[in-house]
């Protein structure tokens, strides 16, 4: 294939979905656009599958001069799984959204978010990346609040506040980086950043700005609120694809592979490990499967954050670490997408079909947990192999803690499967629409196959120690989950309650209750009064002060009786003595001025 054609294809990746979103305005074209919408991801998929990386399309007319391109294998994999998720979620959404009125609206935001998500993978410079990132962040607000319920609107509000904060942090980071590097191309910026005087500030801003999207601990609060309230196909792309934009931002902007940043590496690793455990822990207390999945995303992104930290600390090993990060992102994106869509599929069917769907869900669930023979085992094994690059004091800590994240994740997905367990196999006669089933089935298949396809050939993965190492956390987790379930059933029998279905199992309620958004609840309790006070200050007190000040001035003005005092001065002036004094004074002034001149 010649170069021009591939370059144009990469332009089509972003133009095609945004064009479709624009055409949606015309009512007459809506049916056709709705039919075409999911296929808008096709150019990207085509590019990822058939084109060898190494293409670049300079767009000197765009913004301040931009470049799109597909530089390396890692970008290609990102594009592949992101495009696949968008395509399948789009197909799924066409059937899932029952209300025909909301459908055009949903797909406008869906297509715009898709444009942003696909475009930012191709963007090779700060400004076009920021453009697509912003487009994605703001358009996906429409996906979050699609249902218009009170929860959706609240989640949307928190989502948009954090997105604006993130955008602003990123703007500052990018201006500082561009100023330090003297260019906006990512390659130059990464190298310029290594020597920049403002490096730490830029890194901090980038950590926070992209961290909001990636769900870094402390900035994650929007995620368990927004991901579940969106319609299921939107949750799938939010949690599977769009969340990776934060990760990709780090990979693009941070000076990975150029200079060793020991302390930053450690900071990323600690934040990542903390999020991995925190997400799994708080997620385990949730009752809504989609909220639980959102917390699982926080936990998994924590592991990816840790991997980025590895890359920061060990620049010479970065190429290998990048390969692992990419594969991990692909694995998690596809599995999480399959799980989210699966939750929706499960809700739409009944009877035996439901059983089958539930059993199939074990596949991506076990993969996320990292069970042997799943893609999870591969990526975790590869990640563990990279741990040798971790500098001194952290080797043992991370080595010890990593398997425990697998245990935590196993408990989490165990609870997920428990929550989803189809207790009553009654057949309501509802049949699953094929339009929901096949995108999901294809995604499950892709999540099982693709990570293997792209995994490097590493015999060490198959050593007995490796298999055992991946086995024990999962087995232990399964054991603990089963124990918890049986204990619940046993207690329920003892107390005389009929265990007539998972919905009544008391184990569900015995969990400590942590509201979705966890620390947000505490934080907002502090912030809201402060905000209200600020609002009061700016909205009411500020004008009051101004008015008081003006009134004081006016009083001062009114206090003087100008007419009377003017009259008095005038009458004084009529006296010949004052005229004499004035004349003498004037003469003196003139003499002084003249003397100077």
């Amino acid at each position, binding site marked *: 294939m010649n170069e021009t054609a591939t370059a144009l294809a990469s332009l089509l990746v972003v133009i095609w979905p945004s064009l479709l979103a624009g055409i949606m305005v015309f009512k007459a074209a809506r049916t056709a656009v709705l039919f075409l919408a999911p296929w808008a991801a096709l150019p990207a998929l085509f590019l990822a599958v058939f084109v060898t990386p190494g293409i670049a399309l300079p767009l000197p007319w765009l913004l301040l001069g931009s470049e799109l391109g597909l530089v390396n294998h890692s970008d290609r994999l990102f594009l592949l799984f992101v495009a696949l998720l968008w395509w399948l979620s789009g197909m799924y959404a066409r059937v899932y959204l029952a209300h025909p009125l909301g459908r055009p609206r949903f797909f406008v935001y869906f297509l715009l978010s898709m444009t942003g998500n696909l475009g930012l993978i191709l963007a090779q410079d700060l*400004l076009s990346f920021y453009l697509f990132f*912003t487009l994605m962040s703001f358009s996906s607000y429409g996906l979050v609040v699609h249902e218009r319920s009170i929860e959706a609107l609240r989640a949307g509000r928190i989502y948009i506040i954090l997105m604006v904060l993130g*955008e*602003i942090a990123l*703007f500052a980071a990018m*201006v500082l980086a561009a*100023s330090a590097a003297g260019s906006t191309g990512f390659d130059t910026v990464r190298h310029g950043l290594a020597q920049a005087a403002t490096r730490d500030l830029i890194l901090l801003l980038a950590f926070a700005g992209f961290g909001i999207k990636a769900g870094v601990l402390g900035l994650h609060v929007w995620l368990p609120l927004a991901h579940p309230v969106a319609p299921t196909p939107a949750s799938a792309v939010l949690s599977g694809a769009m969340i990776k934009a934060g990760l990709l931002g780090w990979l693009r902007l941070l000076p990975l592979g150029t200079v060793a940043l020991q302390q930053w590496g450690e900071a990323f690793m600690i934040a990542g490990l903390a999020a991995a455990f925190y997400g799994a822990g708080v997620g385990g207390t949730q009752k809504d499967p989609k909220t639980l999945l959102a917390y699982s995303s926080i936990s998994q992104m924590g592991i990816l954050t840790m991997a980025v930290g590895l890359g920061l600390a060990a620049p010479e090993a970065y190429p290998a670490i990048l390969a692992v990060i990419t594969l991990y992102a692909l694995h998690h994106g596809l599995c999480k997408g399959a799980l989210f869509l699966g939750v929706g599929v499960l809700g739409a069917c009944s009877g035996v079909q439901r059983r089958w769907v539930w059993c199939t869900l074990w596949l991506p669930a076990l993969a996320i947990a990292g069970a042997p023979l799943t893609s999870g085992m591969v990526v975790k094994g590869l990640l563990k192999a990279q741990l040798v690059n971790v500098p001194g004091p952290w080797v043992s800590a991370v080595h010890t803690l990593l398997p425990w994240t697998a245990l935590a994740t196993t408990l989490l997905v165990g609870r997920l499967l428990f929550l989803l367990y189809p207790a009553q196999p009654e057949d309501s006669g509802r049949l699953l629409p094929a339009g929901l089933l096949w995108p999901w089935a294809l995604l499950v298949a892709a999540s099982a196959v693709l990570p293997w396809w792209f995994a490097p050939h590493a015999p060490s993965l198959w050593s007995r120690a490796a298999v055992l190492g991946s086995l024990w956390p999962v087995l232990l987790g399964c054991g603990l989950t089963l124990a918890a379930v049986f204990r619940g059933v046993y207690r329920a029998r003892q107390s005389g309650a009929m265990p007539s279905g998972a919905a009544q199992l008391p184990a569900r309620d015995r969990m400590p209750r942590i509201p979705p958004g966890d620390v947000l609840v505490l934080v907002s309790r502090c912030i809201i009064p402060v905000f209200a006070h600020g609002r009061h200050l700016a909205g009411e007190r500020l*004008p009051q002060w101004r008015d008081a000040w003006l009134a004081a001035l006016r009083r001062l003005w009114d206090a003087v009786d100008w007419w009377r005092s003017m009259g008095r001065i005038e009458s004084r002036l009529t006296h010949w003595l004052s005229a004499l004094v004035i004349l003498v004074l004037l003469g003196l002034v003139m003499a002084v001025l003249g003397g100077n001149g």
Partner: protein
Amino acid sequence: MNGNAWVPLLMIASSLLPGLIIFGLTDERAQLRIVLNLSGALVKFALVGWMLWGVYNGHHYEVRLALLPELELVLLADALSLLYVVLSAILWLLTTVYAVGHLDDSPHRSRFLGFFSLCITTTVGVAMSGNLITFLLFYELLTLATYPLVVHHGTDVARRAGRSYLAYTLFGGALLLLGTVWLYTVTGTLEFTPKGFLYGLGDEQRPALKMIFVMLIAGLGVKAALVPLHGWLPQAMVAPAPVSALLHAVAVVKAGAFGIVRVVYDVYGAEFAAGLGVTAPLAWLAAITIIYGSLRALFQDNLKRRLAFSTVSQVSYIVLGVAIAGPVATIGGVVHVVHQGFMKITLFFCAGNLVDTLGIHKVSEMGGVGRRMPWTMAAFTVGAFGMIGAPPLAGFITKWYLGLGALEAGQGWVIFVLTGSSMLNAAYFLPVLHAAWFGEPPDVWPKERDFGRKETMWALLLPPLITAAMALGAGLLASMPFSPLGWAKLIATREFY
């Protein structure tokens, strides 16, 4: 007088003559009025194109008429004046179309359109002034030409706003006059010169020059709505929609900001002014204005009032860019003359459409309006995101250059102002957008007019769509030749290198 000298005079005449004729027409002669106005606007548009092409090819357009002994009325077209002239010509054409739709059946249409033409005439005069005295002349005429437009409705509120407007601007004009005269006694010349004409003066003049700077900026700051001289602007939003649109985007506010640009660059010279130590306080004043305007905008329920406070904030980006006094920041400040014009006129057109079509004045009435008027609200969305500074819109380019320029000049604190302003802009624009696109429409709109299948009249809908497209294009295609950014870079080059 060579052939090129006629062009600036024709520029003035192209709106002055139609204006004068329109004054003589009765209100019923709508057809003739439209023809006169549109032909004037089109002639001006063509002339601007002619000059742009000419200046690009190295031609020089200048006319000098004797005004007072040793003082001449100078009209010329340099890079900076063209930037402003092009903006006014384009936006005048669009606003004329809009005004035709807007004024369909209101009284005193001839008076309105007559003063409207005078207003743009004086704006072009302000833009093309070649020295401070010419500038002052047109600047004062602008005040007089806009007053009847502000009080057009004749209500008590409008009259009060008009009084306040006059009090502020006449006071500002007096200060400007005083400063100009003082400057003339010190230097003996008032000709705008790139890099200023003051660098030859001795050290003993520095205190006087500082005082003059303060007076000039205070005089211009009234129209540019610098805090605390901005009080008239939010009141003046009682004017009819086309007036507000023009007032906030081109004519009055921009004339003040443009004057500040001229004073800093072509009277004092950016480097000389920085050496004098007067730009740093100006930068702080601009920063305070940016934040204060946004803070006040947060709490306005009246949409036009919210937009007015947003203007207070946004126009000071121009002043900030100028006051940072570095080449890159200059690009950001100067280009915002055009960018702010495109974005703000879009927002005011849209606000006017809401009033004219549905009777909506308040943000709290805007629920679900996006479904009823999708095109208008799409244009509004573009304008709002531009104000927030989201890429790829024009406002982003401004903020990017201001940020880079501030860092280049070693003034990192400006980043806080820019990000804080973005945050506040988001805080007062996003709720509007949320209400419009995600809110539930009411059963009946306050005062709906039916336009059949269209959401509103073409004359009302096309102008905001075009200006929104320009706000988008100015950002997305910023690197193209003849983009506002390209032109601003040319101006910065002439000032600094």
